[in-house]
């Protein structure tokens, strides 16, 4: 069943897009990642021009993140205060990122830098998560009590000034690392064209020691705003948001997100982390293949001169 996309100026199969949106939405609801790092490469793979894939991906991420966040609000697993502080940092970082983006473009080889950033970040984050969570699972299988947060055992982050209490996350921590984390992720987001959930989730878990169940909702909350910001910036400057394409992806995405949130609820924290680690690592390996394996065709056409 074909449908014509008015901005991308091409005809695509609506069922393929619904399935794509559904699968990404499912993972999004389950892991609290927006899914931008999945949907954008998938759209490019489906011959959608990269500029449109990035902007439209951001638009669809809003819908599935909002839908997922509503489910978390109901369960009380969304820390609004923590999310807002992260967001403040995020807006600053995104703005800086847009400047860095145009600077990198003027140097040429922007595509290569984006690919390398993806591989390095996804590979590192995915690998670390997988190792940690598999160890945690083996510990709990071995009959040892799950490693609880030890009172008084804090890392350097917890020794910083300007402490703030985040009730829903059972956290008492300085705002400096929270703002810094938000800014760093905002910076990467605007360069890579993603919401940054795949970095946010592990960073909240491992650096700030936020409980895994609260991390998912809070991350989704923050992603809604980052993705909305990205969408509006792209629509204004590049006119690359294809609203028809985004809407089809959204329909699949919101349905998938609800099922995903349900499945995620049944899994243990370490299982969830292991699966997300595996997924992130898989995307990194896939992108690394593109960099290192001979491409099926060495020639490519780009409109314009």
């Amino acid at each position, binding site marked *: 069943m*074909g*449908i*014509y996309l*008015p*901005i991308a*100026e*091409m*005809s*695509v199969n609506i069922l393929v897009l619904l399935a794509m949106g559904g699968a990404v939405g499912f993972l999004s609801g389950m892991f609290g990642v927006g899914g931008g790092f999945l949907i954008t490469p998938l759209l490019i793979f489906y011959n959608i021009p990269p500029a449109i894939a990035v902007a439209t991906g951001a*638009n*669809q991420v*809003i*819908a*599935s*993140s*909002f*839908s997922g966040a*509503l*489910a978390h609000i*109901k369960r009380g697993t969304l820390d609004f205060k923590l999310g807002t502080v992260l967001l403040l940092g995020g807006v600053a970082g995104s703005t800086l990122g847009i400047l860095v983006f145009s600077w990198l473009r003027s140097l040429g*080889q922007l*595509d*290569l830098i984006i690919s390398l950033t993806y591989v390095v970040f996804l590979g590192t984050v995915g690998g670390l998560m997988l190792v940690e969570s598999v160890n945690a699972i083996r510990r709990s299988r071995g009959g040892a009590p799950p490693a609880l947060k030890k009172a008084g055992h804090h890392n350097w982050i917890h020794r910083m000034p300007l402490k703030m209490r985040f009730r829903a996350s059972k956290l008492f921590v300085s705002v400096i690392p929270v703002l810094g984390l938000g800014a760093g992720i905002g910076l990467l987001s605007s360069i890579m064209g993603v919401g940054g959930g795949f970095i946010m989730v592990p960073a909240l878990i491992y650096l700030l020691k936020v409980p895994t169940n609260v991390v998912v909702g809070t991350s989704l909350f923050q992603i809604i705003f980052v993705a*909305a910001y990205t*969408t*509006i*910036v*792209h*629509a204004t*400057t590049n*006119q690359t*948001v294809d*609203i*028809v394409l*985004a*809407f089809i992806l*959204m*329909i699949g995405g*919101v*349905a998938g*997100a*609800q*099922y995903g*949130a349900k499945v995620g*609820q049944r899994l243990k924290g370490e299982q969830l982390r292991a699966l997300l680690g595996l997924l992130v690592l898989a995307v990194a390996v896939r992108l690394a293949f*593109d*960099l*290192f*394996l*001979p*491409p099926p*065709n*060495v*020639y*490519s*056409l*780009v*409109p*314009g*001169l």
Partner: protein
Amino acid sequence: MTVLRRTLLSIAAMAWLAAGAMAQSANPEGIQIGLSTDVIRITTDFAGEDLTIFGSLENPDVLTARQSRYDVVVVLEGPARPVTVRRKDRILGIWINTLQEGFVGVPESYSIATTRMPQDITDPNSYRQLALGIDYLHVQPVDRERPETLAEFTAALRERKRASGLYSERIGGVQFLSTSLFRATLSLAPNVPIGTHKARAFLFKNGLFVKETSAQLAIVKSGFEQTLYRLSTDHGFFFGICAVVLAIVTGWLGRIIFKRD
């Protein structure tokens, strides 16, 4: 893919046909094509189509026609736009875009239909002179300083366009319905470019080029698609806000409809 058959029947050509039949003179042969519409509107369900163009020969020689010595080639050429061809090479184990070559005046799409195998119609030299066919159509390099890579990049340009379906070829796509009336079927790709296309018909007799004719065809987006497109280009910020609101509403409705807890 639902392939609709769009018929562009030439009323003018039909009328001419009647006139031509009456006046069987020794005038030289000519060729006519006509389009019943000069605009194709692309609607939401567009998934690529077949385009049919009718045409006729002027003053055909009956004997030559009976021996099937007339050949017709019909081309639909999309708007010309600049394009850059890039080549990837392996540097330190990583595949990186290295060389590139810019071309101007490259038709974005090129669909060709012929009565027979191209090599049976005329020789490569004629094709080259007429700039007719995917392998012979004229592309203008921006920079002629590297002649050794120019041929390589020109070939790559044609090959990539073919692979994307924007350049297509239909052997036997032109059929004679009578001595003088013919029908050409061309493919419009799902990603056919918006803009003014040029339909051209070439007549060959005994392997020699006789005459050419052309007609214009505009491919435009239909009302809804055009409105969205115009909104996105003229009011980008407002369009972005709408896209965000749509996403929020869809997310909220999705939560209500698909609620699982």
